[in-house]
């Protein structure tokens, strides 16, 4: 067994530290939002988890392309690792969004484009996991997973655009103001700092988790190979 790399141990500590700082910033550094009050603080982690989710799906699509062109096992491991992590983070984003939406929009859920797209994205990658579970041959599983990760990622923008053509009420806080959005707000500089720090902390967390998951995937791959050898 390969010992845990020094760099990874270091990264673990850095991630934990950044995360604690982010939590402290969210609760004590960022000012209270005037209209929405405390519940607005969910926003920092909500956007960060959604960002990590999309980042992971992008990584998986790229890993899929590389796997199909090069055929190296490790890219499949990267792809499945990224999707597994992102599936969880994206789910957290949906849940935290619901927590925010209850007092602000007066409902847990509404069929707004972003919410609907998020639900569909979650379903696409749940289907990805089911596809992988249904195939025993590791080589075929990797190929199909790569193909589906690419298809899924390509369909997301189209889904978003098509649902966006129906009206939206989701606030666009960063870049562009939508006057019909309910619950939008302007960020003060302290809020912006907290926001970007959260994004940064979650990105580092993603890298850390991805690294761990890739190591786990490599080990699982070895176990699978040993078992195959045993059967032969």
């Amino acid at each position, binding site marked *: 067994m390969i010992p845990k790399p020094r760099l990874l141990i270091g990264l673990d500590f850095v991630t934990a530290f950044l995360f604690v700082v982010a939590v402290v910033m969210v609760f004590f550094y960022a000012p209270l939002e005037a209209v929405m009050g405390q519940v607005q603080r969910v926003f920092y982690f909500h956007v960060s988890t959604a960002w990590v989710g999309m980042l992971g799906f992008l990584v998986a699509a790229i890993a899929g392309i590389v796997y199909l062109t090069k055929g190296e096992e490790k890219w499949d491991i990267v792809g499945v690792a990224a999707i597994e992590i992102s599936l969880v983070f994206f789910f957290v984003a949906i849940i935290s969004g619901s927590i925010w939406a209850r007092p602000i929009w007066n409902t847990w859920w509404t069929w707004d484009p972003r919410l609907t797209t998020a639900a569909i994205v979650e379903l696409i990658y749940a289907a990805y996991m089911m596809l992988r579970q249904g195939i025993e041959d590791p080589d075929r599983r990797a190929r199909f997973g790569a*193909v589906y990760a690419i*298809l899924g990622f390509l369909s997301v923008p189209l889904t978003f655009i098509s649902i966006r*053509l129906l009206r939206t009420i989701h606030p666009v806080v960063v870049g562009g103001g939508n006057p019909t959005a309910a619950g939008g707000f302007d960020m003060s500089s302290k809020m912006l700092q907290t926001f970007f720090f959260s994004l940064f902390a979650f990105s580092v967390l993603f890298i850390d988790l991805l690294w761990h998951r890739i190591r786990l995937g490599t080990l699982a791959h070895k176990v699978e190979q040993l078992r195959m050898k045993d059967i032969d």
Partner: protein
Amino acid sequence: MSDNLRDSYQVTNPRPLTNFFHAVWAVVWKDISAELRSRELISAMFVFSLLVILIFNFALELDARARENVTAGVIWVTFAFAGTLGLNRSMSMEKDRGCLDGLLLAPVDRSAIYFGKAIGNLIFMFLVEIIVLPIYTVLYNVNLFVPGLIITIILGSLGYVAVGTLLSTMAIQARTRDILLPILLFPLVIPVLLAAVKASSGFLQGVSYDEISPWLNILIVYDVIFTAIAYMVFDYVVEE
């Protein structure tokens, strides 16, 4: 069928492009002649579509006013469900007796098999749609023979089949093959279904073309992107 296959073999090598189209046509013709003998697929899809429409009648209380709004939704859900049935059957037919392996052994470009199967699936889907539309028109007294609607149905079916053929090829090679296809397919074709439903209901309600054209554009973009992607990755899906 054998005549046709022989034809396609006789023109090997000297003109590869003609050979490609011959191969595509051979696969399409194989599916059509198999279907002409058994009539399993079309009849199953047709009866299933009728049942879905009937169930919607009870489930949605399709009175005159409701019909105006939900007709487009009902027909597209019907096509989507019937389409899954057809896609699953058309591919598992290949897998069951090792036909797929036979096709893969043929000295033609793999994408010819994809386009052949896709065109075959498209033909079956069109046939079902051609039967369902007049029946729906008669049963619910809604005129569905609007030129725009026909175009929407063609564009929507294209996108649906382009992705569906690829995914059904994947699904039948999995252990959970019968249940896997709709789970894989539906989240990916949501843009198609949404745009098709919106465009269809636009045409049925006589909305101006300016309001419908974005939906048609989405359909066209989806068709182009996903046909191209399916063409590129099909090799990896059938590789052994």
